[in-house]
């Protein structure tokens, strides 16, 4: 079936937060499409284990809020011909009420989810080859609506906006930038939500099920490859129709 083939053949693709969840599945599928994947994560054990399973992949220990780490990654990718794809997926999710959101917690969310995305965009700007690159930023339903967890919401709306500015500014470098907005994807991150709450909310999804990591990875691969070569500055909801 021609829907899938080696669409990322030979491309260097960095996936942050790739030790588990959406990141891990994206890394697997990118590798299956021929990419040379850099599995980036702060979790060493899981990240190294995944990289060892994939053909032509490697693990990169990564705190996405740390400029030094991104500089190392820039050097690494430049020495290998440049980065063709970046999935800014690393993030934290802890939906505290406003009254429970202290400054330190808010800043931690900003550092990982928002600053991490900025540093990733700058990394691609420095390390992309002449033929360009594609950046996929993980936003969320929380970047379309006002869901519980004001710190998370703030960072996901920020990622949506940053995506648009970056799309305009990096177009001359042939770098595309798009955000995706998943909701109710069955991953370890969702353990922050109670199972009861999850099952209750699942009923309001028109397609009647939670999303899978495969669903999201499929969309990310589409946005990384040439089939989406005229798509930039876009935001794609992947939520079974919840945001409709």
């Amino acid at each position, binding site marked *: *079936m*021609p*829907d*899938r083939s080696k669409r990322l053949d030979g491309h260097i693709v960095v996936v942050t937060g790739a030790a588990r969840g959406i990141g891990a599945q994206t890394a697997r599928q990118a590798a299956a499409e021929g990419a040379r994947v850099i599995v980036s994560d702060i979790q060493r054990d899981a990240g190294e284990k995944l990289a060892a399973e994939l053909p032509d992949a490697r693990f990169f220990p990564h705190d996405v809020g740390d400029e030094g780490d991104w500089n190392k990654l820039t050097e690494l990718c430049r020495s290998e011909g440049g980065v063709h794809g970046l999935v800014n997926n690393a993030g934290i999710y802890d939906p505290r009420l406003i009254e429970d959101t202290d400054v330190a917690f808010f800043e931690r969310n900003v550092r990982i989810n928002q600053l991490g995305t900025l540093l990733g965009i700058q990394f691609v700007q420095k390390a992309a080859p002449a033929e360009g690159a594609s950046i996929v930023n993980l936003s969320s339903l929380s970047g379309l609506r006002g869901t519980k967890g004001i710190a998370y919401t703030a960072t996901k709306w920020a990622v949506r906006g940053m995506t*648009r500015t970056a*799309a*305009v500014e990096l*177009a*001359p470098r042939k770098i595309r930038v798009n955000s995706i907005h998943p909701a109710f994807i069955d991953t370890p991150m969702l353990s922050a939500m109670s199972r009861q709450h999850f099952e209750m909310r699942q009923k309001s*999804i*028109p*397609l*009647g099920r939670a*999303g*899978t990591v495969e*669903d*999201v990875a*499929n*969309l990310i*691969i*589409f946005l990384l490859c040439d*089939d*989406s*070569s*005229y*798509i*930039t*500055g*876009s*935001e*794609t*909801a*992947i*939520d*079974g*129709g*919840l*945001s*409709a």
Partner: protein
Amino acid sequence: MPPAADPSRIAIVTGAARGIGRATALRLRSNGWSIVAIDQSPMTDLPDDLSGIDEFRCDLTDSAAVKNVVALALERYGRIDLLVNNAGISGAKPVHETDDENLARIMEVNFTVPFRLSREVLKVMQPGGGIINVASVVNFRATPSTSTYTASKAALAGLTRQMASEYGPRGIRCNAVAPGLVETTLTADKLRCDAKFRRIWVDGTPWHRLGRPEDIAAAIAFLASPDAEFINGHTLVIDGGWSVAAPAV
């Protein structure tokens, strides 16, 4: 030679003679779909091998045509798995210059016909089926003179979201694509002659080019595929960044 068609992938594509519709018909076929290609005129630049493309020639604004076309497709194939509402017309003017005939015509072709086709198809579509509507970026960012065109495409995008919410529980996904300006013989001429047009659509697009029919077809094919099974009620913008950019000066 296209691959053997999957008998559970029957797609109706309207406006399939040229442009986005034609590119979509061909791209879907290369992904294993069988195409019922609807248009008033024959497909331009016919591929050498027409297997998997069944041309129905009719005017969908004719009151009986919509029902007849769906009934015929159902009779011939036993099922309809995808409807791509692509047929549409331009020719809009500023509001104060728009007569009732222009208003009615553009709303009918761009919105009412897709609505009627969706109605007939939704009566018979099985779980796993879908509808993809071709809307436009002018729903997100205004352009001169496009009064009824903008309204009709916004109506279509709104309908898409509502249908997605309503029919999602039946296992039917409804999505839209919002192309920016796409290369056609008409737009190619305008680009050559009209500097203001060029400034809006080329200089004002971060990607500095118009869309190609294949760009839109690729996105439609993605949305139609199992890869997009959790995407529902979404309008996918394919515009080289035009709708998120500031106007060119």
